[in-house]
């Protein structure tokens, strides 16, 4: 034997899953939606995604350089954050503001708290909320949701408020009209078909439900996420809106819920570890989403709901420890 032997602790086998390939799997799951966003909102959407991804990577790189820490960009989590943040912005959003958002997401929300796994809230959501509060008009101005849609083979422009805004106002004032919404019989509100394919205004990554579901199912199939959070979250919103007399189908499809439930609420760092904890977390997200949407000042409640539940995650984790096999209570 010429070389020294490796003396390490067991186990000496490892399944091939690593942090970076988990992150790359998430990126792959987001790609169909990025393509859909480009088709629906035009090349500017693609440019915005690229700006966000590049800024996130650069900010993380610079942070590590400045603080003299080993480089962490190879874990690819900055790419995921960049894509998710872009998905939460309207396609017309100014690039410089997007870069501010990326700075908040990577430096403030993630790196200052200790980097990957240590952040208390989802970086993309934190940044979105900061942008929402700081640049309210650019984030939410109805005119920002100018949407090129495919109709009759030609691209036409449809302007208007986000459908959820229309749905919320209509429904809260008319509790009895369940069912009309989904069929598109109420003015300014798209029908289910349009909602599924993203033929509506909105943030660039939240509209195309079909591609989001494809990506979400891919993540579940790849065992990157557990189905508990997305299903419980969406289920809670559906049931609660039904009970409260608003159209559950529109509540599920017309806002940022599907994007949030599959890709943001499932963030490992900021969601509980155990199955029970995940279920509690998701129910909480669902309750808060509906409450904010129907009774709050904001049209959309997904980001706030997830953010608030992110903050509760350490508590939920404490309440929902696993019960060790054969363990005796202390």
């Amino acid at each position, binding site marked *: 034997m010429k070389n020294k*032997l490796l003396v390490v602790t067991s186990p000496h086998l490892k399944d091939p899953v690593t942090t970076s390939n988990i992150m790359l799997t998430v990126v792959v799951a987001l790609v169909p939606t990025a393509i859909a966003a480009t088709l629906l909102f035009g090349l500017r959407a693609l440019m915005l995604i690229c700006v966000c991804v590049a800024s996130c990577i650069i900010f993380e790189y610079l942070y590590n350089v400045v603080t003299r820490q080993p480089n962490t960009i190879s874990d690819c989590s900055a790419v995921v954050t960049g894509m998710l943040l872009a998905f939460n912005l309207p396609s017309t959003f100014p690039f410089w503001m997007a870069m501010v958002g990326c700075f908040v997401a990577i430096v403030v929300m993630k790196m200052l708290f200790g980097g990957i796994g240590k952040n208390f809230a989802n970086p993309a959501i934190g940044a979105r909320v900061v942008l929402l509060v700081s640049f309210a008009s650019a984030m939410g101005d109805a005119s920002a949701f100018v949407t090129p849609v495919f109709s009759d083979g030609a691209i036409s422009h449809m302007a208007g408020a986000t459908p959820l805004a229309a749905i919320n106002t209509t429904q809260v004032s008319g509790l009895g009209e369940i069912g009309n919404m989904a069929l598109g019989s109420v003015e300014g509100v798209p029908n289910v078909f349009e909602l599924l394919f993203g033929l509506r205004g909105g943030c660039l990554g939240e509209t195309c439900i079909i591609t989001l579901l494809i990506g979400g199912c891919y993540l579940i199939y790849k065992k990157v996420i557990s189905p508990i959070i997305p299903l419980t979250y969406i289920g809670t919103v559906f049931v609660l809106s039904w009970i409260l007399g608003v159209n559950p189908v529109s509540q599920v499809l017309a806002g940022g819920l599907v994007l949030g439930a599959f890709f943001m609420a499932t963030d490992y760092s900021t969601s509980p570890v155990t199955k029970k904890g995940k279920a509690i977390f998701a129910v909480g997200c669902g309750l808060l989403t509906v409450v904010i949407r129907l009774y709050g000042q904001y049209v959309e409640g997904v980001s706030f709901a997830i953010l608030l539940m992110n903050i509760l995650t350490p508590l939920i984790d404490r309440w929902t420890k696993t019960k060790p096999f054969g363990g005796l209570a202390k």
Partner: protein
Amino acid sequence: MKMNLNGVKVPHHKNTMNCETVSMPVPASVTIPLLQHMGAPCTPVVKVKDEVKVGQLLADSQEFMSVPIHSSVSGTVTAIEDFITSNGVRTQTIVIACDGQQTVDESVQPPSVETREDFLGAIRRSGLVGLGGAGFPTFIKLNPKNLDEVDTLIINGAECEPFITADNREFLENSEKVMKGIELVTRFLGISHVIIGIEDNKKEAIDKMQQLILGKDGYQLAVLKSKYPQGAEKVLIYETTGKVVKEGQLPADQGVIVMNVSSVAFVASYLETGMPLIQKRVTVDGSAVAEPKNVMVPIGTKFEDVIAFCGGYAKEPRLILMGGPMMGIAVPNDQYPVIKNNNAILAFAEEDALERLETPCIRCARCVNACPVHLMPAAIDKAVHGKNKESLAALKVNLCIECGCCAYVCPANRYLVLYNRMGKQMLREKK
């Protein structure tokens, strides 16, 4: 309702499954450590330059938790040296230069066993320890305080570690002795029920045992899913009987005794011949080994000699394991001797030697979903690094069986098993 004990699906790599055991010739010298069991080390009863014969007592101890050690060869004691076992315990070793004659000692006579006391005494004198890996003294295991409450003997033939096929070969080559051993243990201990647990990737062994227990009253074959760590004692007991061995309990407290298949077969051969435990079937495999096979090795033979018998190294080894890849110990060189509870020698080339590059925990919960005893390894990792003993006690790190499932699935490559061991140590220091 039956719990799901998680675990992980590991690649089997049972390459030597069909390799019939071959006995290797006696090496030029053997090195027999005086600690080959869980408990107190033995003190030598021979001196340097003594002539010793096969089966002769070399060392024993007055301590309760100890098992005598015998010579596996005939020859001359050349040295009694200090020795550090592969898991880091300081002890001694008796070095014997072999004469190649393999003269059997006069003391090797079939023991006369009439009563339970005779039986347990014979088991102690045989030098038997649990051959599955832990090396727990068998005479202690077979003599629990509440023996009259024990009604089930579980034979552990799960062999869930990748690569290792030694127990599989025991079933196939020595099934008569397995059955005889079970018969002896149940007769002397007054146990009525026998469960033989085998993982479903060992079809031949299952078929063979199925035939042998056909029509036998009280015998049951449990075909287990091939899922690691099916052979871990607590897991095996739960999967075969539904009983939960609680914190601080022994299996006997739940009315169960578990024996490894090779151990139980040895009981039969010892009572028949009186030859103590001086050889062990070892699976030799791994990408650096030229001819992987199952070898019957005299105890004390150096890994180097065993590997030379298997065609030597095919590639430059980078990692040599004593035991399987999930729980085995990485040794610093190939001069270590085969001991009683050693069931595999695996040598891997550079490309198959796992060197972990730790990255931060991303809280993915894979470890929590893999842990067969339902612990939270990621939380233990955090508590160990924060030196939080209170949290470690609450997280029940003491229940960790060190199976390695958590670190196997960890995408951040964290040394979770190491941290669990550190956590256990911290808890022990507290008391």
